[in-house]
């Protein structure tokens, strides 16, 4: 029985990361800017009247854009790439810590 050749694991991980970076860095500029489901319901039903502004609304990456970059495409793309890298790093660190603890637990 022939099966399609499997890409090796490392190559697969790299491809997955590249896809995430392209989606956040490039494809995100084509995303809809309409209000999402909850925002729409909040406007229609009156929840929005109680909404408070985000405490970090002036942060450099607020609303998925780099405040210092004027070009909207570049600004959103760079913010997306930064976000992907931060999430990847934090989650990888967390998983590593969980696995270390696991190994330590087994050892004792």
């Amino acid at each position, binding site marked *: *029985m022939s099966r399609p050749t499997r890409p090796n694991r490392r190559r697969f991980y790299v491809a997955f990361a590249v896809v*995430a970076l392209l989606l*956040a860095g490039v494809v995100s500029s084509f*995303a809809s800017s309409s209000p999402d*489901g909850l925002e729409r319901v909040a406007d*229609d039903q009156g929840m929005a009247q109680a909404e408070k502004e985000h405490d970090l609304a002036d942060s450099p990456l607020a609303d998925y854009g780099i405040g210092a970059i004027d070009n909207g495409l570049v600004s959103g793309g760079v913010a997306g790439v930064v976000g992907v890298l931060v*999430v*990847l790093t934090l989650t*990888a660190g967390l998983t590593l810590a969980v*696995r270390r603890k696991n190994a330590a637990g087994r050892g004792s």
Partner: protein
Amino acid sequence: MHVPDGFLDATTSLATAGVAAAGVGVALRGARRELDERTAPMAGLVAAFVFAVQMLNFPVGAGTSGHLLGGALAAVLVGPWTGVLCVSVVLIVQALLFADGGITALGTNVTLLSLVAVGAGWLMFRALQRMLPNTTTWVAPAAAVAAFVSVPVTAAAFTGLYAVGGTAPIPLDGLLTAMLGWHSLIGIGEAVITGLTVASITAVRPDLVFGAHRALRSRPLDVRTATAPQEAR
């Protein structure tokens, strides 16, 4: 569906923060059993992918959009406990770096978009797996249906929280109808994205899909003749 500050009162926000902290604590323990040499690198990648795809709002009609929640996707790809950790990291980064989802609402968002969405997605996926043939072919369709279901369930859970601690006095039946209506539409997008992603990964590396492990274990070994030393995988 990120809840901003101000929608829910302080008591409810504190209570959901407690639920979120307890849930993530349990997930940290549960994830120990899920994470091995193969799934551990996937966790970071899945979290990064969920973050990226959450930026891709798709139109669902009448000037409204939706985006992936990713709860069912993460659960199927890396397991429910690790999935909770992945989506929670995404939500924390979104609230603290991107001002998306309130700070006081962070516990609410982790409770809803991580615990509820991942939980609903995973339970639905497991229920479907028990009914469907135990082959890798059915992993992606089951994930898609589970993803669809997870969105209105999460929307209903938000409405439940709002019934307890909503700040603006508004009729709850209208809120529930509107939440379920829009989020059923968004659920279709959730199902398409989740189905395509799980199908693509299952096609090339089913061993890296947590939800496919059950099917892989029951698959009979196929005997292949080695023609050359295989590269290390």
